[in-house]
């Protein structure tokens, strides 16, 4: 379902990764993604894959959830894989008419597919193991040094929290409005531009109206729960640097070292 895809991917469990500080997880994610795309030969790729599998193991998330996310990008992965297969450099291994498949093409293909898959899995691990509020908290903390550019980061984090909360609600609402307008004969498949725009308006206007109502109610609710600006709050969960975070950083460092070392030690397979 779209709703599951949008957000709310968090999967409650008690694992090393669940307990790791969200700031550390964000930084780890960014760095490992960069280095996964920096893998140049099968040795470094192998290290990257080990890292990914280790993370999956540490996340304590059922395999079928990963499969679900993987299925969504399966087409994209195959497509980019195929695209990379045709590379006219290198030794021709297989020839069929004008189609030439070379060893470089096969290598490219393998690398691209593994990188994309790893990327998706690492991102999934992150969303599975991180509460949305922890994510926004972490973003807020990480952006603190940039406060000098005169943006209220706490307010932005608050907005993110609310956005995450309301995305599934709004998706549900859109589905409802579409069904209601279809019941009045709204024609969403018509080729005529005018009919199309009118049908679209019949979704957008009610959605806006109900969103204003929601915003008004939410403002009332927040105010009556003593909200007075995002800065004047304490937090129930405090992001604290723990031993487990050190462990997590240590793993990432080993991974970086491994990738860089193999890249230098062995010849590059892909450009």
């Amino acid at each position, binding site marked *: 379902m779209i709703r599951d895809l949008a957000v709310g991917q968090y999967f409650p469990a008690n694992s090393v990764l669940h307990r790791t500080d969200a700031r550390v997880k964000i930084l780890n994610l960014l760095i490992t993604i960069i280095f996964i795309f920096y893998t140049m030969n099968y040795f470094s790729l192998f290290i990257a894959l080990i890292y990914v599998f280790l993370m999956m193991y540490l996340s304590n998330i059922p395999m079928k959830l990963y499969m679900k996310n993987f299925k969504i990008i399966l087409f994209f992965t195959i497509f980019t894989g195929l695209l990379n297969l045709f590379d006219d450099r290198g030794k021709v291994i297989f020839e069929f008419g004008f189609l030439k498949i070379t060893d470089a093409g096969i290598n490219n293909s393998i690398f691209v597919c593994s990188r994309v898959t790893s990327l998706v899995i690492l991102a999934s691990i992150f969303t599975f193991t991180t509460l949305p509020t922890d994510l926004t908290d972490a973003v807020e903390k990480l952006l603190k040094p940039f406060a000098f550019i005169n943006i209220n980061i706490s307010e932005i984090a608050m907005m993110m929290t609310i956005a995450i909360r309301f995305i599934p609600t709004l998706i549900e609402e859109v589905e409802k409005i579409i069904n209601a307008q279809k019941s009045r004969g709204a024609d969403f498949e018509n080729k005529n531009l005018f009919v199309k725009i009118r049908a679209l308006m019949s979704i957008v206007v009610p959605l806006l109206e109900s969103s204003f109502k929601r915003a008004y109610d939410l403002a009332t609710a927040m105010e*009556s729960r003593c909200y007075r600006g995002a800065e004047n709050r304490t937090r129930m969960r405090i992001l604290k640097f723990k031993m487990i975070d050190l462990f997590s950083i240590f793993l990432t460092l080993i991974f970086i070292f491994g990738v860089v070392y193999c890249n230098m030690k062995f010849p590059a397979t892909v450009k």
Partner: protein
Amino acid sequence: MEKLIDINNVNFKYNDGNYILSDINLIINRGEFVSLLGSNGSGKSTLSKLCNAMLMPTHGSVTVDGLNTIDNKEKYNIRCKVGLVQQNPDNQIVAATVEEDVAFGPENLQLSPEEIRKRVDDSLKSVGMYKYKDSSIYKLSGGEKQKVAISGIVAMQPECIILDEPTSMLDPKSRKDVLDTIIKLNKEQKIAIILVTHYMDEAVLADKVVMMDKGRILIQGTPKEVFSNVELLKEHKFTLPEVTELTEILRNNRCDLPRGIYDEDEFILSLKSIVGGRECL
């Protein structure tokens, strides 16, 4: 009884509109359960927002535990004492998971993390939602969401909770569940309740019933007192509880039943006393 909220001669209108509320005098005592009845647009919701300083009276005064709502620096103290739960459960939940949302109020009160944790756990337990504490909001039913909203207020440890038609969007089963939760909070934690509702069967559960019509209080008193005034209520087009209406028809047909019956069992007992328990052959 010690009074908690004192609404004294209040009139209210928005800037240049007509008066929405006129001559309102109402006292809510500590730990009291008050229900507020009236048709759509009778001013019930406006009145409830006056009680927690979301709106200020145009004339007259509203005091909460001795604090005047017009006093801007007491605004947040008043809102801690009087919490508000609205009609649509979806529109008042701020965070994506249950416990994060319940923590929102206490976080605004700038309590310590340990204190917030304790309050969140306690309040989730008190509404029976503790086992859902890590759940995503969108996976809950309407009734469960409404209980999370109530829990979010309870975590602020209020003296009084105003619930503005909290069950009108729920199915009968969830309605009962939410209502039981409200009654439990009133009985066990002695939190005063102001329940704004359309449902007669909910209203009669209260210690005090306040009937509103066109911005005025028509009548207030115990359910018995209020439902004894059948003519007045009918004149103002209130729908009576079925059992009250039944009693009224029977009384008009010279049956010797007391006035102001609103409870089925009471009705049956009263009927027994005049027909006798014996089987009619």
